[in-house]
């Protein structure tokens, strides 16, 4: 399987992340799956005209292209010209290259939330008029249009995340290489379900604090970050706390809120990222699939039932009250 990887209006962080794939590493994973890198901006030898020759060969049909990976959002500005990113050495807007190459590729993969939905580059006034390959935020469309279907029969595969987990990318590529990714393996935002059907909440080590609504009030507190600190882990579609990052990490394990970076428009939560918006003291965003009345009822019950240990630990940066050790009862 021949893979071409291009970068546009992003930070390159998804490439930096994927180079951290381990057991096996990125290069071994590709080789093991029979995936050849035609070119990648960070690791390949070819520069300048050699690369332009390769792109031209793909457009002319002289070079097969099985997977086109695009990292970074697509910049339509200024005024629809795409001149905020002219691909170096070609005098041609990157969006033109991406449109043309997408038509040649068997599969098109958006690596990261920028390429999928626009992402952080589309935040605020969206100065560069950034969008995703097939979405502009939640709105289907984007650069390639709502009806786009790659030659292999799939729409754009959105490996969303800011950054993506290395293995969300490698596993998506391996599934494509094996012909094992079908349209119903993608969720409603075209994200691979193998990671998007989970919630960040699953496996979060702060679950006991969540259960009792024993909340963190400031960075470094051990408590649940949903009530005050802006955590969206109960709503965010990803397996971060069961898969883990850089060995043993995840956002909530790092002591900060999940900001739902796999979702379209995560960049504009409508409030300060690390503060939970509330109405009458109740967080506006409730856990996924949970009726509000039950949340309110269970929360007040749970708060009343909070063990002293959990309440005290929640407000500190280390365990001050260990769990009781239950001695076997003497007969």
């Amino acid at each position, binding site marked *: 399987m021949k893979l071409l990887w291009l970068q546009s209006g992003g930070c*390159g962080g998804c490439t930096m992340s994927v180079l951290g794939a381990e057991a096996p590493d990125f290069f071994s994973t590709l080789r093991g799956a029979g995936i050849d890198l035609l*070119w990648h901006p960070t690791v390949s030898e070819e520069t300048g005209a050699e690369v332009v020759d390769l792109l031209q060969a793909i457009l002319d049909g002289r070079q097969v292209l099985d997977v086109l990976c695009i990292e970074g959002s697509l910049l339509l500005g200024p005024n629809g010209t795409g001149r905020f990113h002219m*691909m170096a050495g070609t005098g041609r807007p990157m969006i033109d290259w991406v449109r043309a190459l997408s038509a040649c590729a068997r599969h098109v993969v958006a690596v990261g939330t920028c390429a999928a939905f626009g992402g*952080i580059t589309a935040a*605020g006034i969206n100065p560069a008029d950034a969008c995703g390959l097939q979405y502009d935020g939640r709105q289907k469309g984007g650069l390639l249009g709502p009806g786009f279907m790659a030659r292999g029969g799939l729409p754009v595969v959105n490996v969303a995340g800011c950054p993506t987990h290395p293995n969300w990318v490698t596993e998506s590529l391996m599934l494509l290489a094996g012909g094992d990714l079908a349209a119903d393996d993608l969720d409603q935002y075209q994200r691979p379900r193998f990671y998007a059907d989970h919630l960040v909440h699953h496996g979060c080590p702060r679950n006991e604090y969540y259960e009792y609504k024993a909340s963190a009030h400031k*960075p470094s507190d051990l408590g649940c970050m949903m009530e005050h600190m802006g955590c969206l882990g109960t709503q965010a579609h990803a397996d971060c706390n069961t898969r*883990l990052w850089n060995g043993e990490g995840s956002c909530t394990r790092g002591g900060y809120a999940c900001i739902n970076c796999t979702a379209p428009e995560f960049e504009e939560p409508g409030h300060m990222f690390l503060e939970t918006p509330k109405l009458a003291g109740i967080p506006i965003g409730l856990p996924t699939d949970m009726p509000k009345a039950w949340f309110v009822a269970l929360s007040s019950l749970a708060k009343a039932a909070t063990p002293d240990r959990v309440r005290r630990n929640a407000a500190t940066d280390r365990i001050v009250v260990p769990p009781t050790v239950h001695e076997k009862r003497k007969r």
Partner: protein
Amino acid sequence: MTETARDSRLIVGPFNRVEGDLEVQLDIAGDRVVAARVNSPLFRGFERILEGRDPRDALVIVPRICGICSVSQSVAAARALEALAGQAVPDNGRLAQDIMRRVENLGDHLTHFHVFFMPDFARAAYAARPWFAEVEAGFKAAAGSAVREAVAARTALFHVFGIMGGKWPHTLTIQPGGVSRAIDARDKVRLAAIVADFRQSLERQLYGADLDQVAALATPEALAAWRDQGPAGHFRLFLRIAADLGLDRLGRAHDRFLSYGTGLDHRGGFWQGGAVSALDPALIAEDHSHARMAGRERRHHPFEGSTVPDGTDEVGYTWCKAPRLAGQPFETGAIARQLMAGQPLIAALVAGQGGTVFTRVVARLIELAAEVVALGEAIRQLNPKGEWFAPARLPADGLAMGLTEAARGALGHWLRVEGGRIASYQIIAPTTWNFSPRDSDGLAGPLETALVGVAVAPGERAPVAVQHIVRSFDPCMVCTVH
């Protein structure tokens, strides 16, 4: 064929194995480059994205400027916000922030040497050189054994982020006032083990020697002895290649160097004409005369700066502004840091050959060795019983600056807050200095200057000497324009 008949213009791009997209325009007369123009072809507008937001949102936005300098961006923002709040940070919190910044920089140095820079010597153009077989086996792009070992070593090192930062890139652990994740005694020994393992991997493969020995290299003569009789390793291999190809005569710029200070010592300085002087950040100004940006009539200190792209402009040839210190272009990076720290070998190399491809790479490799040793010491200083975070209360109005060092050099954030919202946020990244375009005085930026005089063989479409020079700066193009 007359010389004038060979006068031509060469456009090199897409320029890869740099972070982000880059185009270099070369005017060639005869067989030499007579003028170079550096084009940063991507504009995203992060400074404008930040405007109007709660200042604390900068911690989410700025790391995403760059996937390779992500933590440095976070640290610069945290420093600016701490300055705004007049915030005292607990020692642990400050140290933990700095450990993460240094780990990222070490990973970047490793990536630069193995993944970005060395693979150019494994190109077919060098097949006849005596060192070629060794370089090809180790450094063939994306395939060489040393490339893959380095990527694996970086991955293992970045387990530091799995413990301290949740993830890398784009951690939110770094907060004004410290860090959001306390380190206990178990974490501390685990961190020490990760760094010790990284150290051993460098000693085995890159240097073939104890890191203390590398960091203690003090004279060009000692370096030459290492090249001729030193321990086998990729450091020595580079020294041999450099001598063979004359990399010590390639890519000299202005020999003016700028740093915002090393480690926890934030006294910035600059080096010019053999002397180090203290830095006055008030003398920094950005010039837009050759950038596709409005605001060309005068230079702006970043507190008065603006970022208004002018898409119709034909005079500007890049999205990159031209930062100047007291009106002069400056080079930033490992050389500058080593000069500020008084590293005798780098000082002697700069005094002799100047800042060249060779000096830049040697400065990075010496710094890598010294910093791994220092990192082990920094981890020992973490106090599991101490405080990690102190809440910062931000005023509704104010000005603040956050300066730090990314792997590739001096990184600064200049923030203005009005009514609790970001009114202005200006960023000058290391490669903004190094790859700046001409200014209103016609002064070219460091890379533009470094490329003048380079030999170009007939038919070369991407002259390999040009590639060595460009990559010797370890450019980060996504930071450059942001």
